């Protein structure tokens, strides 16, 4: 619907990719680990290797959780916009089909947070 207004109404998208100085936004959530209160937002260059996100960035984000050290990356299930998805760790974000403001989630089978409470 158009915004009801007394004249033509146009908004400016504040979060166009051009505003991020060469980066694009990627949102990442870890299923069953709600001790991290919400998914995270990251600005990454599209050329960044996907594996570098997991190996170099996420430990600083998730490392506090006792489950983090036990994650078996060969068993992790991935989702993009809620649909099953398979990333290639050695390819870039762009080559993995990740665009600006995409949201991915990962599930770590067998790990369900503090005392199995999804915390």
């Amino acid at each position: 619907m158009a915004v009801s207004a007394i004249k033509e109404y146009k908004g400016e998208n504040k979060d166009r990719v051009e505003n991020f100085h060469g980066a694009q936004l990627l949102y990442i959530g870890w299923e069953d680990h709600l001790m991290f209160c919400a998914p995270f937002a990251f600005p990454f260059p599209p050329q960044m290797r996907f594996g570098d996100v997991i190996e170099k960035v996420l430990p600083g984000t998730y490392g506090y959780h006792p489950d983090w050290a036990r994650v078996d990356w060969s068993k992790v299930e991935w989702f993009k916009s809620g649909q099953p998805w398979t990333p290639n760790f050695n390819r870039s974000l762009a080559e993995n089909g990740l665009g600006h403001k995409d949201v991915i989630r990962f599930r770590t089978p067998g790990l369900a947070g503090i005392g199995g409470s999804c915390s």
Partner: protein
Amino acid sequence: MDMKAAPKHKMGLKERYAAMTRGLDWETSYQPMDKVYPFDKYEGIVIHDWDKWQDPFRLTMDAYWKYQAEKERKLYAIIDAYAQNNGHLNVTDARYINTVKLFLQGVTPLEYMAHRGFAHVGRALRGPGPRIACQMQALDELRHAQTQVHAMSNYNRYYNGLHDWRHMYERVWYLSVPKSFFEDAVSAGPFEFLVAVGFSFEYVLTNLLFVPFVSGAAYNGDMNTMTFGFSAQSDEARHMTLGLECIKFLLEQDPANVPIVQRWLDKWCWRGVRLLSLVAMMMDYMLPKRVMSWKEAWEMYFEEAGGALFKDLARYGIREPKCMQQVRLEKDHLSHQVWTTFYNYGAAAAFHTWIPDADEMDWLSQKYPESFDKYYRPRMEYWREQAALGNRYYNKTLPMLCQTCQIPMLFTEPGDPTKICYRETSYLGDKFHFCSDHCKEIFEYEPEKYIQAWLPVHQIYQGNCFEPGTDPTAPGFDPLAAVLQHYHLNFGRDNLDFEGSEDQRNFAAWKGAVTRNQVG
């Protein structure tokens, strides 16, 4: 000239109201009325007879000044007494004062915005009845902002985090939630503003802040907040009445108004529910002595009182807001999810956070038997153990936000508290993300409005939240520290855990000084 007065006829309340609110204006002739009042038709609301607007209290301007002056005298007498008597040392616990900080940062600026909104809407409506009602409400809201600043300035002399609330309101991440709520309302048309603020917010929701929370402030010894809170709420009782009157007026004027009003009710009840999640955590976690749980307050003031209201409005073809089902499911979880979010980001908040002590956790278990022990106690106990080992958790990665309510995506799927609720849509080739179906639907109805959202996390990543002259490419640049400087948040004083804070130390020392004489 014969100056003898005519025999006095004392007018009754209804007559006096009619005399003081009707026939005060005129039909313009040099300019068409539609040019003088350009904003009161474009939303599609049809008004046939503006005189059908009635203020049920029939308050006229002369009576208004008289009673408001009396309220102010009482209020300032109490504030002065409280300050003279070092009342701040009588609160239950210095943790309590963090509710005052959040109030000043997040609520007081809204009072001022409400003042601006009603002043604008009063000018926009061509009927004199609603114009006078808006004028009084604009003055009330300004009074609330002023009295709150006066009352809370007393705390600013002793405690951290209250020094630059106005600056913070424009910048700090969690304050974008109340700020964007009100900016959404004031940038809408005048009738939407009235339904949003006058009805949905004032009638359905402000009771939850100003009644059980303020009663809780009294229970915790804060006479200051009790007096400004109840003084404001006595005006709110009038606003609620006008909000209800406004809805009835719109619904009775023309059947074409009904679907428009229904959509606004759906939108603004939901926007208000999301905004009130801050109050949920204030009641369940930040009041050291609790009057009632958030869930109990919710049932009393939203489900029962709101239910009665919507049942009454059914005769106009209005149904209860769409979000009712979801909010019923959220009431067991809301305060816990929001408080743990602030615990996560305790380094970036201008008030202190903490883990509830063992007694408080037991109280929470008792009040939330379905949810607390199963979902929330485990993470809190883990954090408590870690903090005792010197490893207090501070989340340093920025969260994903909802495009509409701007709250971090902390809410879980309705009916499944183990899964974050993700919703998304595309508009003109870009993706947008939401915490709920309701926030998504609000966006999709007016995307051109909400693509303009100033989302704090994205603004930080765009480099717009550093002080002028900051060089983010400099070696050793610490973005979090730079953002906090931009917020005027004093690291180590305003933020971090309550345990070990300057507020905690000072309060303990001053309390000690109250009962002992200093020697030497």
